[in-house]
């Protein structure tokens, strides 16, 4: 049993499939998500106007207050770097620049409302993972500009993908355990948390559903089944993983319909992490033998 577990862990970390393609999809998804967040998200003058709320701790304990100009410059750096990352321009540099600037921007602003849980910090961790590998080999401006394919180092890419997959799988398990720890099994079988939150902050559709309170008991039970099992499914291979990813997408769609919470910055990462495969190894190798290397597949 332990041998099986070890080998699964090894496979996840060192033997991921279609690494360059899936890394590239992840790069585009991460870069685009961070651009959208940095442009439209809550990172504006509220944080320079109200520095009296700044209460730094942990990694930010020594980070000083940022003035309006510094905060705007940090935000602009994040926007430009993440756009470059999504396009695959100077990928290694833009990946690190996005990872570091968004780490500062997202972390700094979180220090104003502590204690409050973090909800989009998987992006920060995943950016660091992407930066540690070469995600610009395909589907990138870098690949378009190169005259020959770069040396492949799929090991770092495989570890990065494995790390992100395990993190997402664990996230759902953690959400399940948190409910069990804080509220007990009643959270799941009564469904009253979902019902009350829907009445407080939910959508019109969610409130309309409250005509049938038993629906919320079913939602509570389904949430428990989903959170308990999806992590396992996501870390398996083939159809089980596809089913897990499909269930996760359906779960988030349902949550958005009822509560108006989409968790979109995680949802957009699910297909490249668990569903998309890229071309087969044979066709990718054949393409790399063509003049222009993998660029031939991107054109």
């Amino acid at each position, binding site marked *: 049993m332990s041998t099986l577990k070890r080998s699964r*862990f*090894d496979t996840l*970390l060192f033997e991921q499939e279609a690494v360059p393609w899936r890394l590239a999809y992840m790069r585009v998804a991460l870069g685009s998500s961070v651009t959208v*967040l940095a442009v*439209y*998200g*809550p990172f*504006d003058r*509220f944080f320079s106007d*109200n520095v009296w709320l700044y209460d730094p*701790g*942990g*990694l*930010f304990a020594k980070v000083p207050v940022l003035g309006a100009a510094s905060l705007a410059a940090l935000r602009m750096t994040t926007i430009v770097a993440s756009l470059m990352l999504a396009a695959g321009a100077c990928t290694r540099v833009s990946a690190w620049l996005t990872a570091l600037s968004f*780490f500062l921007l997202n*972390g700094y602003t*979180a*220090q*104003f*409302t502590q*204690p*409050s*849980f*973090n*909800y989009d*910090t*998987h992006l*920060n961790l995943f950016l660091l993972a992407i930066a540690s590998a070469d995600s610009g080999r395909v589907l990138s401006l870098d690949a378009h500009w190169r005259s020959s394919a770069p040396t492949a180092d799929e090991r770092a890419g495989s*570890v990065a993908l494995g*790390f992100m997959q*395990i*993190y997402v799988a*664990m*996230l759902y398990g*953690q*959400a399940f*355990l*948190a*409910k069990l*720890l*804080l*509220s007990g099994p*009643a*959270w799941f079988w*009564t469904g*009253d*948390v979902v*019902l*009350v*939150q829907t*009445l*407080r*902050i939910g959508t019109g559709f969610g409130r309309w559903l*409250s*005509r*049938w*309170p038993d629906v919320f008991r079913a939602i509570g039970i389904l949430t428990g089944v989903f959170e308990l099992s999806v992590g396992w499914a996501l870390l398996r291979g083939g159809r089980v993983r596809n089913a897990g990813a499909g269930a996760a997408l359906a779960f988030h769609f349902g949550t958005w319909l009822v509560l108006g*919470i*989409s968790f*979109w910055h995680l949802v957009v990462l699910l297909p490249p992490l668990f569903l998309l495969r890229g071309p087969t190894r044979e066709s990718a190798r054949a393409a790399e033998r063509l003049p222009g290397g993998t660029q031939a597949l991107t054109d």
Partner: protein
Amino acid sequence: MGCRGLLKLAMLGFFVVQASQLFVGAFGWRNGWPLCSYDMFALRVAPPHSTVSVVLTDDRGARQRVHPGNVLPLEFFRAMALVNRTYLSHADEATRERLARVALSELRRSWPAFDEVWAAARPEPGHNFVGIAFYVERQVLSKTGRGVRLRTEAERLLYSYTERRKQGEST
């Protein structure tokens, strides 16, 4: 131990620390940013329960009851954490007044909804909010002909602030 072994050990260490955030969150301590306890909506708030609401008053006296997420340009749960920290805990008078003034000033600038940031509450066209009050409400589930709804059984004023403007000053 080879390179792979060290890498696996480091990864395992990271995930153990990440998992430990679950207990950090459960005891109400601060998550080690960027780690997360993923305990959103984990606390069972079976009615009757208490919740904080905000009542805004405009310059002609019209009142509007809204969620804390509608008075600060932050994610709704962060706005709620800030309001709870300030008005439910024992923050000093100056801090309470300061946050009330910030909320009114932000509402005047207004902001659109984005993801988990809710849109600013809006007064009737041509008017401004000049008063803000924070209440803690005790809510119960009540059955109606159309299912269930939350009914406020009792409420208690936590803090109230009204802007004093000089005569003739426009907003």
